[in-house]
C-alpha cells in the first residue's frame, strides 16, 4: 500500500528504470501475483455506469486508513479512523469497529442481489429484501464483525413529523403462498427527518450463513409509524436501487484468518 514513489502527479518516480514486460513475461507475472492473492483467475466485475457505488467508496476509505498506518508505522490511529468515519456517520466512530479494522486480515463488502423493492397489498406489511452472495468467502476466514448499512434520507412529507420504527429481520424460512418466517434482529426508533447512514449488527446471522450457506435466505426490513401503520422503505426515506450510487445499501464484514493456507507450488 505504499505510494511513496509517486510524485505529485501520481507518476512513477523517474529514478526507476522502466521496461515494458513482454507478453509472456506479463502472463507469468499475472499468474504469480494471482497465486499470491489466492485467486484462481482474474476477476471480471460488472460496474454500473463505470463508477463506484457506496460499498467500494466505503472500502476505499478503509484502505486509505490502513495504508497510511502502514506507511507511517504509527500505532493507535484512532483519530484517523474517527475522522474517516465522520463522512459515513457519527455512529461508526466506535472503539469496537476500530479494533475490528486493526485486527482484521480481510474486509469484504457485499452488494444486494435483490433487484426490486417489494410493495405488497394493504393486508400485508411493506418490506424491503436483501440478499448477499457469501459463497466467495475463502475457507478458514472467521467473521469478527458484520454490518448491514442503509442510507436514510429525510422521509416524505406525509410522515415527516413522526417517529418511525425500523426493524431488521433474518429470513428463517420462505413459503410460496404466505409471508416468510422471520427472526427479529434489531428494532430502532428514528426521527422521520433523520438523515445519514444506519448500521445494524448482523454478526450472528453472518456467521450462520458462512457456516451453513443453506440458511442464507436474506434479510428483510420493515418500517412502521408510531401509530403502527406499515409504510414502504421509500416513504421512510431509505435509499434503494433508484437512489444515488454513493448511498446504495450494502453489507460489510470483517474477517480474521483461523487457519494457515499453504500456497501450492506451480
Amino acid at each position, binding site marked *: 500500500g*505504499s505510494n511513496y514513489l509517486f510524485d505529485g502527479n501520481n507518476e512513477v518516480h523517474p529514478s526507476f528504470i522502466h521496461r515494458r514486460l513482454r507478453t509472456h513475461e506479463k502472463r507469468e507475472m499475472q499468474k504469480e501475483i494471482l497465486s499470491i492473492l489466492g485467486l484462481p483467475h482474474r476477476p471480471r*466485475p460488472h460496474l454500473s455506469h463505470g463508477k463506484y457505488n457506496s460499498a*467500494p467508496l466505503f472500502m476505499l476509505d478503509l484502505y486509505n486508513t490502513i495504508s497510511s498506518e502502514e506507511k507511517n508505522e504509527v500505532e493507535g490511529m484512532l483519530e484517523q479512523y474517527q475522522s474517516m468515519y465522520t463522512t459515513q456517520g457519527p455512529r461508526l466512530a466506535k472503539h469496537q469497529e476500530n479494533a475490528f479494522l486493526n485486527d482484521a486480515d480481510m474486509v469484504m463488502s457485499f452488494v444486494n442481489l435483490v433487484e426490486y423493492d417489494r410493495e405488497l397489498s394493504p393486508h400485508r406489511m411493506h418490506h424491503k429484501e436483501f440478499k448477499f452472495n457469501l459463497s466467495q468467502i475463502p475457507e478458514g476466514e472467521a467473521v469478527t464483525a458484520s454490518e448491514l448499512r442503509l442510507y436514510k434520507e429525510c422521509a416524505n412529507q406525509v410522515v415527516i413529523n413522526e417517529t418511525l420504527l425500523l426493524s431488521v429481520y433474518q429470513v428463517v424460512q420462505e413459503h410460496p403462498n404466505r409471508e416468510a418466517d422471520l427472526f427479529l434482529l434489531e428494532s430502532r426508533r428514528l426521527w422521520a427527518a433523520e438523515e445519514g447512514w444506519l448500521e445494524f449488527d448482523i454478526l450472528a446471522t453472518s456467521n450462520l450463513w458462512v457456516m451453513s450457506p443453506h440458511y442464507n435466505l436474506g434479510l428483510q426490513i420493515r418500517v412502521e409509524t408510531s401509530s403502527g401503520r406499515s409504510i414502504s422503505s421509500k416513504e421512510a426515506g431509505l435509499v434503494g436501487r433508484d437512489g444515488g450510487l454513493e448511498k446504495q445499501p450494502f453489507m460489510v464484514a470483517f474477517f480474521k484468518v483461523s487457519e494457515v493456507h499453504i500456497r501450492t507450488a506451480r
Partner: protein
Amino acid sequence: STNKRNKNRNRATQPQEGGSRGPSPADYNSSDHNTACRRHELYVSFRELGWQDWIIAPEGYAANYCGGECVFPLNAHMNATNHAIVQTLVHLMNPENVPKPCCAATKLHAISVLYFDDNSNVILKKYKNMVVRACGCH
C-alpha cells in the same frame, strides 16, 4: 537501478606462514558500498498488468529486492547476523567448502490490496511479506 560489480577484485590466495589458508583479512579493503549487500528498488505495477478494472488500489507497489555481496569485512550497514560475520571469515579461510553468506531480506512488510471479485463484491485484504524493507547478510 544499476549494480555494477567490481570484477577486478584480486582474490588470489597466497600461502601464509603458520599454516593459515587463504588471504588475510588485512588484504581486503572496506566493502565498496555499491557492491555490498543492500536493498534495490523494484516497482510492480498493477496498471502495467492491465488490472485497473478490478484492482481498485493500489496502482502498484514498491516490492524492492536484495542484492550484493557479503564479503569480509561486513560493515554495520550490511545488517549482518553474528553468524554471517563468522561465516565470512571461515569463507576466507576455506572458500571451496564454505560459501559466503547470502544477501537476503531481513525485514518484510505487508501491503493491503483492494479489489473487486466476479460478483462485484469488494475485498480488502492484507498480504504479508510483499515488500522488502531491509536487507542483510545471513
